[in-house]
């Protein structure tokens, strides 16, 4: 601590420069507030630096490599080589390009970026520490957007070979063997990518199914694909310990009381994320956490302290970048006096597995609990001209609607470009579109989105490219 403390006046302090924080900062600046953004590491947060963006770059590279090696289309033979270091360089360049873009946007919006670790010293004051100095800022409004970090298992402490997703994304070479503890979306995405690069991947999942949050019809397809890539999946597995040696790590786990072990170059532990709310000095601000370490907020993201907002992974709801961005905009607008509120009908969620999985709104079971009667439609990729001509005939589109009104309440897509197809369906839900609306909207031919129209027609009982059961 430095003697002679200086306190500076700021209208809006945003703590955390991830997809929640930087978006909130830009929106607040657009609305005329003088904004300061405090970031402990890199602008862009986990998403841009160690999450969404780099993992998608690796997944694309793995897919390219696998397609080249195995030949996507018969008749084209390839000689494919892999220089993984160059792949990583390219991935890093993608990250750099994106974070520089955000830097530029912050600058253009006159957001002042301060590097350091922030903690509250009062309900209107934060102290920002860097390696060499500390500085206090007195604020009118504050948005906390500190995100989350991987949960560490007590039995499997992170080390040289027991890694988080951050290190696994940055490996210098493709591991020969990769063991993954946790069959959620990160485990599946990275496991599949490294399997495509040639690693022997084993995934241990504690529950009876991988991707436990998704419908069995979806996980079945992913399970089949994992098998094709020779990924070993062990469900109902309980990781016990990991012993690191010079050139490998031995992971012991239990299934039905029986002990097993697997040796690997690295173990990726990805069993969930915990909110970064423990080292913020929230007590000093007067904010109390709930039992899960989350910050309770109202419909605008306002905490129990009226001038402090919290958004993203540190509040209730799924830990998704796009949810954080949405909440960031709402909080910034609320701070600027607008009547904005967190008021969405649905949040799409995407797993960049092979095939891709994307869901939005309610699944059939959930819809059945809300609506008296539910109408569904399902259409297979195999009946869509573009899917087949892309050599991507694996997958389906499913729509879930309230039978009485025909209004779409949920959708699931598994297959190529599911991550892009889901956007139309999220918009349809927000716009209260009915199955008829979707069936009567002309979709360009030949494209994958034609399946949305066809699925709506299937739900209505009159699909063209499908025979009724």
């Amino acid at each position, binding site marked *: 601590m430095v003697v002679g403390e200086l306190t500076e006046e700021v209208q809006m302090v945003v703590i955390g420069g991830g997809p929640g924080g930087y978006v909130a900062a830009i929106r607040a600046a657009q609305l005329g507030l003088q904004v300061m953004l405090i970031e402990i590491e890199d602008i862009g947060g986990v998403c841009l630096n160690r999450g969404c963006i780099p993992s998608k770059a690796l997944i694309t590279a793995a897919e390219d490599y696998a397609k080249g090696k195995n030949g996507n289309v018969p008749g084209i033979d390839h000689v494919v080589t892999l220089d993984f270091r160059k792949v990583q360089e390219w991935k890093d360049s993608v990250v750099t390009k994106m974070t520089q873009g955000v830097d530029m946007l912050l600058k253009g919006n006159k957001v002042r970026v301060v590097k350091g670790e922030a903690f509250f010293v009062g309900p209107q004051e934060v102290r920002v520490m860097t390696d060499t100095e500390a500085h206090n800022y007195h604020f009118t409004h504050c948005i906390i957007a500190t995100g989350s970090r991987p949960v560490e298992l007590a039995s499997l402490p992170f080390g040289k070979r027991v890694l988080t997703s951050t290190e696994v994304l940055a490996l210098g070479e493709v591991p020969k063997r990769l063991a993954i503890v946790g069959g959620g979306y990160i485990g599946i995405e990275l496991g599949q990518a490294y399997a495509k690069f040639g690693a022997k991947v084993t995934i241990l999942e504690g529950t009876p199914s991988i991707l436990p949050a998704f419908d069995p019809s979806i996980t079945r397809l992913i399970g089949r694909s994992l098998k094709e890539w020779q990924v070993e999946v062990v469900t109902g597995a309980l990781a016990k310990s990991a012993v690191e040696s010079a050139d490998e790590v031995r992971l012991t786990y239990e299934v039905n009381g029986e002990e097993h072990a697997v040796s690997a170059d690295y173990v990726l532990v990805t069993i969930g994320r915990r909110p970064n709310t423990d080292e913020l000095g929230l007590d000093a601000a007067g904010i109390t956490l709930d039992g899960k370490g989350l910050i309770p907020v109202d419909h*605008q993201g*306002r905490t129990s302290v009226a001038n402090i907002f919290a958004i993203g992974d540190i509040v*209730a709801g799924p830990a998704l970048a796009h949810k954080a961005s949405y909440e960031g905009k709402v909080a910034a607008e609320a701070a600027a006096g607008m009547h904005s*509120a*967190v*008021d969405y009908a649905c949040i799409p969620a995407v797993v960049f597995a092979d095939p891709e999985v994307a869901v939005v709104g309610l699944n059939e079971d959930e819809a059945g609990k809300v609506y008296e009667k539910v109408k569904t439609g399902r259409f297979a990729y195999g009946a869509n001209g573009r899917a087949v001509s892309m050599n991507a005939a694996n997958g389906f589109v499913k729509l879930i609607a309230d039978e009485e*009104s025909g209004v779409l309440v949920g959708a699931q897509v598994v297959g190529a470009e599911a991550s892009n197809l889901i956007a139309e369906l999220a918009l349809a839900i927000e716009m*209260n579109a009915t199955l008829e609306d979707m069936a009567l909207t002309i979709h360009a031919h030949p494209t994958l989105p034609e399946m949305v129209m066809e699925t709506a027609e299937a739900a209505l009982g009159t699909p063209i490219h499908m025979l009724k059961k």
Partner: protein
Amino acid sequence: MGVFQFAFPELGEGIHEGKVAKWIVHEGDYVREDEPLAEVENDKAVVEIPSPVEGKVVQLFFSEGAVASVGEPFVSFETDAVTSDANEEVPKTPLEDAGFATTVHEVKQAEAIEVSGTRTSPAGHTNQSAVATPDIAATPERVLAIPSVRRLARENGIAIEEVKGTGEHGKITREDVFAHLANQDRDNPAISKSENVELPAKEAVTKLVFDTAQEEIVPLSSIRRSIMQAMVKSKFSAPHVTMMDEVDVTELVSFRNEMKQVAAARDVKLTFLPFIVKALIAALKKYPYLNAELDEENGQIKLKKEYHIGIATDTDRGLLVPVLHHANHMSMWELAEQITALSAKARTGKIKLEEMRGSTASISNIGSAKGLFFPPILNYPEVAILGVGRIRETLLRKDGEIVDAHMMALSLSFDHRVVDGAMAQLALNEIKAVLAEPKRMLMEV
């Protein structure tokens, strides 16, 4: 002793709410069955709500000035009169029907308090936990409204769930939000304008300054509100045309003067109105399309065979129109008595709803306020209304001579969808003929 909870009763066909004008009983009072509990002001009248039971008043659920809706708990009694069966009936009010509904109600109340407090709190969203981690089993159907409409509602401090959707499947449109806003302003201008935004942005500051302007805010009474609705409905549904004319009522004036003494002897106040009623009925009989109603839906005109004449009456609370039912069967004396009795009731607010319904044509008299010609607005769905102006003394050229005359101003408005101008003028001529020659009234009885 059981507790009986009395739900706010239906006051008349299509009347779903009423403002508690005055409590006649207090908590702790003992009341007999049928004794009045409260005076309630609805669309048009003040009515007394009688007690359904004999017993002790335990709780009054509304304060004076509050608006009660049919089915809401109104008064609870401690009484012997009800069995436990009756008690079980009580909770079956719409509000209490499901525990869910009550919870929602409470949530909304909490929000309302927040709005008036210091925290910014636009309503119009599900509560925080429901948004963040949807508990599907407990989540009700989300009301249909697109994001931009939801925002519009929030910006105007409206809970989207409270807006009545007119779109397909009850979808809430932009127009619905504006309509709700208009209603809200009408219900409580003070509340809807008070936005206390902490640390306000520029926009909010201007609003506050604007609000402190020197204006007196007068909430619309329910009578004013129904006048407003009736006038808008009439003016914008029926294309009005007004014929204006004068009639020499010299003879009528002297006839009435003669009759005044007889009237006094009978203790009847004889104004010109009974004569005008007679004259109007004579014209309506001759031209039945003026005593009619347009049934647009079925594409027909209903010609009324009875003559119920509404008399527009100015009261402290606003315009009321008591009705002389079967006026065609009344003698002149009966008309005079009825007019006096009804207008007195209207002025004291004791008039019953039935006494203001069913008119087939109306008369609006501006003469007593010294007015002359004016285009009266139809008492919709009637086809004709006769506006009566003052009688003025003037010189008239008659049969080549200048004579003293009393001239009465008449303005006949009619619905041009049903009646054309020529017929209306002919009807007005008939009214004039009868008024000019009061002897003819004998023939019209």
